[in-house]
């Protein structure tokens, strides 16, 4: 502690462009109606509602309280009734008086709190800003300039839709408190939701005339980019997770049986006259060749069913349209109907996504690279950005091209290959995985050889407690110990195949307006990103990459995932690409070197 300025406060600066303001205490607007300036100001711009007290401030729909209450009641009242019956049956009549009134009181309390919350929330849209006030005890006031509104998401889950309500989520492209960049209104009437969607993405002071001819014009100019084809649902089960989901379903059933101490299966088999677990086990062991494929088929089928149901719920009535002002609008959903609008200018590119299995059957899906769709983490952002279900690859490319509005599609750009060193890195990794697999297999094989009958017995007991029909331990025991070499071999082959595919997936290229980059084996993404959306570069090199003359070159952007990376590109190759993509940004920091030294990187890297 020697410095003279030890006690100076930590400094914080904000550069000019103020982001979303979050003010703990609202300024004057908190007092409804006694602020003539604001009232007058907003009266010109918020149509219809201007006569209300509070200068155009609107509340949420009063029905939203009832929507919430109904849902809570639907879950709680039946369990309260069941609880009462159970208590009566077990001979506790006094206690039986408790559940229903307690539930009633709880629901009443929840409803009351919800009403307070509802009353505290007010929002309005003026010519320049969208403002929201909220909070019962801790008041909050948020204000976003309308030009920062990137996307408007109108969703109506079934229990909300029956009340004619919807949720409106406004994406701002700025962090708003925790968990992403969005403001949520739960719930407003469907009509209000639709008006918000239109108003918020409409620029300029034309808001007041919007309800009339403007709306009609916008509707006329709306053009459809794509509509759901029921045949596309067939692509839904084409995922690597299909088996896993099927396994999950079966595992849940087995788990339920184990919970009941095996009595579940016993009961079912007695009722239906099925053989006991022991008999089934003997039967299975006798016909493994038949039963194993059948079981796998069963897993696959249950996975297929689950995925189909999810796809139908998600993508039912899917339509993607472009409206007169360039806004791209997505509508979809069976039980929860979703309408997502992204301002055309904020759609900075697309992702053509081809997961492994979908790729094998010639399918792909399209995602947006847009600001205002961030969901807190990468997975949620990706889920929010989906613009299409799995569809035929050619159709997906067509859609991507249409979204980017170019005559020459960025998705058709020829991509440059990455150096062989990138393949060598992947082979090294595959080699390590293979080696680990071999060591593990050797270890298990060795255990198999020295295993005594009592070990097998113990394993069988454990399995019997988990599964009614223990076949795995039995199966393993009858296999010779060298059988462990087979999985090791399989792992090795799969690892090298994956490495090769991963290398083949790498690529980068340039279109006149877009960067194009591709990577991935399990999920192959072809990303296009508008050159003007690049807001910086990040180049990283690991010790291995420095030795091989490689680098990861990432374009940073406000849109989508925030950063798109060309992995394991040659250093010179990657920098040349970045320099050409956004001239003048990187150029002052580049230098040309000759021959051998070129790949070594800056002199400071030891």
């Amino acid at each position: 502690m020697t410095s003279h300025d030890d006690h100076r406060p930590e400094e914080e600066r904000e550069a000019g462009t103020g982001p979303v303001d979050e003010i703990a205490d609202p300024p004057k607007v908190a007092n409804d109606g006694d602020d003539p300036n604001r009232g007058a100001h907003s009266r010109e711009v918020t149509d219809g509602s201007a006569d209300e007290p509070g200068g155009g401030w609107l509340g949420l729909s009063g029905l939203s309280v009832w929507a919430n209450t109904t849902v809570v009641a639907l879950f709680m009242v039946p369990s309260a009734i069941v609880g009462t019956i159970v208590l009566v049956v077990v001979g506790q009549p006094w206690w039986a008086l408790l559940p229903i009134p307690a539930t009633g009181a709880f629901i009443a309390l929840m409803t009351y709190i919800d009403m307070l919350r509802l009353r505290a929330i007010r929002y309005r849209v003026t010519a320049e800003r969208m403002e929201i006030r909220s909070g019962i005890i801790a008041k909050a006031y948020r204000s976003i300039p309308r030009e920062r509104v990137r996307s408007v998401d109108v969703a109506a889950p079934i229990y909300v839709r029956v009340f004619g309500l919807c949720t409106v989520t406004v994406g701002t492209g700025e962090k708003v408190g925790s968990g992403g960049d969005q403001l949520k209104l739960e719930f407003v009437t469907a009509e209000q939701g639709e008006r918000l969607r239109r108003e918020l993405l409409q620029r300029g002071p034309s808001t007041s005339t919007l309800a009339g001819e403007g709306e009609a014009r916008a509707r006329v100019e709306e053009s459809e980019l794509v509509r759901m084809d029921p045949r596309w649902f067939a692509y839904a089960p084409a995922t690597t997770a299909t088996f896993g989901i099927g396994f999950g379903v079966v595992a849940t059933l087995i788990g339920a049986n184990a919970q009941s101490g095996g009595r579940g299966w016993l009961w079912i088999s007695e009722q239906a006259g099925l053989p006991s677990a022991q008999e089934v086990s003997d039967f299975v062991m006798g016909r493994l060749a038949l039963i194993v494929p059948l079981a796998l088929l069963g897993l696959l089928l249950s996975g297929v069913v689950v995925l189909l149901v999810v796809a139908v719920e998600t993508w039912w009535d899917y339509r993607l349209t472009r409206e007169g002002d360039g806004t791209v609008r997505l509508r979809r959903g069976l039980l929860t109907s979703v309408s997502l609008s992204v301002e055309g200018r904020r759609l900075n590119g697309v992702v053509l996504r081809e997961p492994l299995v979908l790729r094998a059957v010639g399918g792909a899906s399209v995602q947006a690279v847009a600001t205002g769709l961030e969901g807190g983490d990468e997975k949620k952002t990706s889920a929010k950005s989906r613009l299409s279900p799995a569809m035929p690859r050619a159709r997906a490319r067509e859609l991507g091209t249409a979204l980017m509005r170019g005559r020459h599609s960025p998705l058709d750009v020829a991509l440059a290959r990455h150096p062989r060193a990138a393949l060598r890195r992947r082979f090294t990794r595959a080699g390590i995985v293979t080696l680990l697999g071999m060591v593990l297999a050797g270890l298990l094989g060795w255990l198999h050889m020295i295993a005594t009958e009592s070990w097998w017995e113990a394993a069988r007991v454990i399995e019997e407690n988990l599964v009614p029909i223990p076949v795995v331990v039995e199966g393993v025991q009858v296999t010779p110990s060298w059988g462990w070499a087979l999985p090791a071999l399989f792992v090795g082959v799969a690892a090298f195949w994956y490495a090769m595919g991963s290398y083949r997936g790498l690529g980068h290229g340039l279109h006149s307006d877009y960067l194009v980059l591709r990577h991935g084996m399990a999920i192959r993404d072809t990303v296009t990103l508008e050159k003007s959306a690049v807001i910086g570069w990040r180049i990283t090199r690991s010790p291995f990459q420095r030795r091989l003359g490689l680098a990861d070159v990432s374009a940073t952007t406000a849109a989508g995932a925030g950063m798109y990376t060309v992995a394991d590109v040659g250093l010179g190759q990657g920098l040349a690409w970045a320099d050409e993509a956004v001239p003048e940004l990187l150029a002052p920091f580049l230098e040309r070197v000759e021959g051998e030294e070129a790949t070594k990187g800056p002199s400071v890297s030891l």
Partner: protein
Amino acid sequence: MSTDALRLRPPNHRVDHRAIRWWTTQSLIVTVVLTAIPLVPALLWEPVRPWFLLAAGILAVVGLLVTVVMPRWRYRVHRWEITDTAVYTSSGWLWQEWRVAPMSRIQTVDTARGPLQRAFGLSSVTVTTASAAGPIEISGLDHVVATEVADQLTDSTEAVPGDAT
């Protein structure tokens, strides 16, 4: 490929020399804490003592090695530069990172000093853009220099219109 190839030149300015001492202290603290973790069961539990002592020994040796090598290595890599149009930094030691952000896309500029940095009279400047890739950080600057850098950046970014996306 041609015999000529592009590479990044190092940014102009090194960080303050005191940063070496700062990183050394940081690394020492981490080493001491990590070594102490297996020492506790080693003292309490007789039968496994040799194993935990071995683990503590390995951690201590690796930690001290890092403490000796890392700060000097970092000092050679960590550099920064601010031009009229962009911020350019390099950082890291084994894994290295270069960042470029144009002045027009900078949203906020902060300076921050942890207690340890303060003890050495150092400061960090954090430059945030609209990207989720994380802010650009220049750490280990002399406190006065950091303030000047932040002021310069704030002035430059205010001069550029637009909403930085």
